[in-house]
């Protein structure tokens, strides 16, 4: 089986400081990988480098494109990278406001990616928007409301619908449940798990919430100070942490 995403020796520096360094891994189709670590450990830097938002200083990020197999997205031209960004990739931001157009209706938000890949039939676009709003549990009568009128959890679900409407193969998620209260988090996780399983998505989830990765991720990567300190199957890493930092992380979780 060929990997969907192949990362080799990736490094990003902010001047003399390390953003992240020496990161290598393969991600296979249908696999969900979690990246955990404390604030400032380089998780988001890594994710942004993978998704093409930041240009890494070193290394390669190869993505298995539909047309010509593994291509290095770092050296790829900007139009090609953007095309991937609105077809095969999806990016779910921590703050829904960063990923949504707040002054455009929910339907318009979901339809934007379709229109960006040349959907030009209003009826079809609207039908797909309604279908996707339904899948993320937003009722049809809210389709013409703006996201400003939505609750935080709804905004996050709308962001997910907007991203998944073009049937991407790889989803990047940056703290998808951050800032939501626990019951809303639980429903969102449930929804995400369902979508990931049904659509056979591959995903990379950055979070500092171990419960999220326990529920969603097949594999885990633990980061500290820009370095990957431990990798392995999620249950293995969480139940039998080897590295000192991972042990600290696992034991820091509050038990209710």
């Amino acid at each position, binding site marked *: 089986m060929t990997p969907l995403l192949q990362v080799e020796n990736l490094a990003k520096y902010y001047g003399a400081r390390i953003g992240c360094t020496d990161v290598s891994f393969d991600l296979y189709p249908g696999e969900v990988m979690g990246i955990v670590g404390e604030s400032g450990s380089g998780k988001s830097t890594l994710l942004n480098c993978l998704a093409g938002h930041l240009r890494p200083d070193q290394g390669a990020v190869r993505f298995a494109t539909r047309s010509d197999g593994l291509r290095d997205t770092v050296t790829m031209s900007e139009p090609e990278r*953007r095309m991937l960004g609105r077809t095969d990739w999806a990016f779910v931001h921590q703050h829904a406001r960063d990923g949504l157009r707040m002054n455009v209706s929910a339907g318009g938000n979901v339809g934007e990616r379709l229109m960006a890949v040349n959907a030009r039939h209003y009826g079809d676009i609207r039908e797909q928007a309604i279908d996707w709003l339904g899948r993320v549990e937003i009722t049809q009568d809210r389709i013409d409301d703006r996201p400003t009128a939505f609750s935080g959890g709804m905004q996050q679900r709308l962001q997910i619908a907007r991203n998944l409407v073009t049937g991407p193969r790889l989803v990047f998620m940056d703290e998808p449940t951050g800032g939501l209260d626990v019951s809303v988090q639980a429903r969102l996780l449930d929804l995400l798990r369902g979508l990931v399983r049904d659509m056979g998505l591959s995903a990379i989830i950055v979070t500092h919430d171990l419960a999220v990765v326990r529920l969603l991720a097949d594999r885990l990567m633990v980061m500290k100070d820009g370095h990957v300190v431990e990798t392995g199957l999620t249950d293995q890493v969480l139940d039998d942490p080897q590295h000192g930092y991972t042990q600290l992380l696992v034991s820091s979780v509050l038990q209710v």
Partner: protein
Amino acid sequence: MKEYNFAYLDEQTKRMIRRAILKGLAIPGYQVPFASREMPMPYGWGTGGVQVSAAVLTPDDTLKVIDQGADDTTNAVSIRRFFQRTAGVAVTEKTGEASVIQTRHRIPEQALREGQIIVYQVPIPEPLRFLEPSEVETRKMHALEDYGLMHVKLYEDISQHGDIATAYAYPVKVEGRYVMDPSPIPKFDNPKLDMAAIQLFGAGREQRIYALPPYTKVVSLDFDDYPFQPTKADHACALCGSTSSYLDELITDDAGGRMFICSDTDYCATRVEDAA
């Protein structure tokens, strides 16, 4: 007129503007930045159009200036007088006799012919402005032909109003490449953008010039199931009886009285004369 250089601007400035115009003509629909000058009128009153007109005028030209189709409104009268005084060119109100026409918000009803130049005053040249606030980003979107957002606006129109409610400054695609704001002309005028004359667009405050060479293919954006439709008031002109020209609605009293008349005064007057 010795106090001013011909057509107010100095020769170096006109040269700079002509270079921008030539570049604009070479890349139809592309917004060329230029070093817009202070003009003796406020921004928003046609400083871009005036600078472009000044750069293309020659002493042999005949100038016509219209504002919302009319030759006799403040903006038109003052710009016409400006060039009479600073360039000493002949002026006319007849569309057919003019070699350069500066316009605000209308295209004359009478079809323009080869050899004529029409100059538009543009307030906001960027069609994506109200959708994407960052200029850096919009320029990137133009460069990468990333125009999905433009249709989002039309989608919003239909979802809110049941139809594409954008009635003026209706976005167009030029030669299958650049999306362009045709200046705030009514969408009724959009089909006329495919014309024999040279079309120049000047935005003074925003410091952009863009252009359409003659016979450039200009397509108004739309959806397959909501095709583009040029619209006008469903009346005949009260003065000349024209049913095919763009109409202005005039309130005549405070008891609901109103009349519809051609917005193109020259077209209307000519028809009235011919009928008499």
